[in-house]
């Protein structure tokens, strides 16, 4: 059995989660500081991929990165092509899962007690130190939840991925596109195996989240 779709899905989800982790956190952090009107508008734009059908996201990505579009042609000169390549899947997965990270991180930052940051500043701690050592640990739970959600969403991405990178066995195939392909070609057995693999991965992800949460709760109890 060809395990390429598993490997491809995992690396796409992993890389896109890392990208979304940083971009989502920084977008959330800076959005919280903007004037209300700008914030509202930015919020709509940044959350849109969550509400739009993934195929529409894929279509928009094709409009921007398509081989015959200006940006696509510029990138092609540097040998970067997001269509029909495995790393194009990262782009599709990142765009679709970004709002999940952004929104959960923003919620966590909004409930952060700013006096902690202020007291850090008056003590002379640098803003970078305050961000990574005080703000992030205090918002750890929300950020962790956002990361897991974004990873799970990236792993299951189908619509935008199939629009942007299609399905080429051994090159751009992911678990979800493979399930569809196998079912379409009447290979119900093959589709079923991939469905089971998918179930297993989801179960592991959920178990991990639950474990982290109960550990967190135990640590919280110890702290009280």
């Amino acid at each position, binding site marked *: 059995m060809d395990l390429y779709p598993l490997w491809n899905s995992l690396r796409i989800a992993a890389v896109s989660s890392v990208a979304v982790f940083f971009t989502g956190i920084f977008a959330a952090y800076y959005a919280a500081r903007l004037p209300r009107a700008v914030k509202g508008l930015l919020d709509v734009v940044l959350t849109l991929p969550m509400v739009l059908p993934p195929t529409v996201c894929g279509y928009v990505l094709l409009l921007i990165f398509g081989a015959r579009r200006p940006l696509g042609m510029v990138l092609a000169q540097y040998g970067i092509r997001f269509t029909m390549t495995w790393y194009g899947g990262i782009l599709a997965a990142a765009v679709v899962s970004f709002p999940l990270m952004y929104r959960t991180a923003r919620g966590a930052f909004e409930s952060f*007690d700013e*006096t*902690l940051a*202020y*007291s*850090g*500043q*008056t*003590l*002379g*701690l*640098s803003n970078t130190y305050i961000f990574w*050592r*005080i703000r992030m*640990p*205090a918002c750890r739970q929300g950020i962790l939840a956002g990361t897991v959600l974004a990873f799970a969403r990236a792993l299951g991405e189908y619509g935008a991925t199939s629009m942007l990178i299609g399905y080429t066995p051994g090159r751009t195939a992911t678990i979800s596109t493979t399930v569809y392909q196998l079912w379409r070609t009447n290979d119900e057995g093959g589709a079923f195996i991939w469905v089971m693999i998918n179930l297993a991965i989801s179960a592991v992800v959920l178990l991990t989240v639950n474990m982290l949460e109960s550990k967190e709760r135990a640590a919280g109890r110890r*702290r*009280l």
Partner: protein
Amino acid sequence: MSLSVDIKKEFGGFRLETAFETDGDILGILGASGCGKSMTLRCIAGIVRPDEGRIVLNGVPLFDSAAGINLPPQERRVGYLFQNYGLFPNMTVEQNILCGLHREKDKRRRKKAAAEMIGRMKLEGLETRRPAQLSGGQQQRVALARILAGSPEILMLDEPFSALDAYLRVQIQTDMQEWLREFGKDVLLVSHNRDEIYRLCGSLAVMDRGRILGKGPVKQMFRSPGSRQGAVLTGCKNIVEARKAGEHLAEVPAWGLCLETEEPLRDDLCAIGIRAHYFSPEEERNSGAVVLEGEMEEPFEWILKFRYETAAPDSRPVWWRIPKERRPQHFPKRLGIAPEQVMPLYR
């Protein structure tokens, strides 16, 4: 040792226009909540940028809109004790205190300084605890230790006792008195509680709606707050409209009396204040015929509400507070007030 502040800041329909100076002592800023006390501290700390003005601490300009100076909070060396202390919940007591010592680069010296601070603030044995595992008083000591470890140029305390249980408050205030004396530099203490300020501060500024109404030595400010709001905030219970009737004579229409004052009066007199303790049956000056209207018992005192026979029918009753052992058997026919205890109030 001096702080000089002269700033303006507008936000959401509120206008802060504060100007005051300190000279190495403990200045209490007394004001109702929302009067701009905390905003003033935030401007001094550099958390909030004033619209214009100057803040100079020990000769160093922290903020000067004309010269384009606005130091970040990290460079101001201002110790700020927040109302909820601002301890970092993810760090232990020792780590929190080490945060105040980050300027010291030598690791062993830092540890030593932290241990010294832990000893000084009586926090031994709590080093590895987290803030959530401490009592309110302990949290405050950790926060203060963390601030003092960095030897700031000024200490600012924002409602430092409001988060503590009432029975702990006075105990901690006596400790605080000691710590502030050891600190020895300028201190700003913001509070809405007159007792805290009377106990701890050398001078007092009364703040109302973004402005300093008056400033002076604490005792003098309590004796003669000068402004109506100052009288309210220093706990005066009897404040009544008045107008000037002579150089030392105030007419009080609501009571149907003319009261003699010790201070010469200005033309813009708007009210007089008389503290509830200052009525006396023996005093013959400023005396009026009175009728008892109601009473309320306190642990050690009686509050007796009375009315002048000459009072307007819709006037509010006057409060007289008297220690239990001194309460006369029968309510007196007449009560008087010494002229030096009639506080003229303006604006």
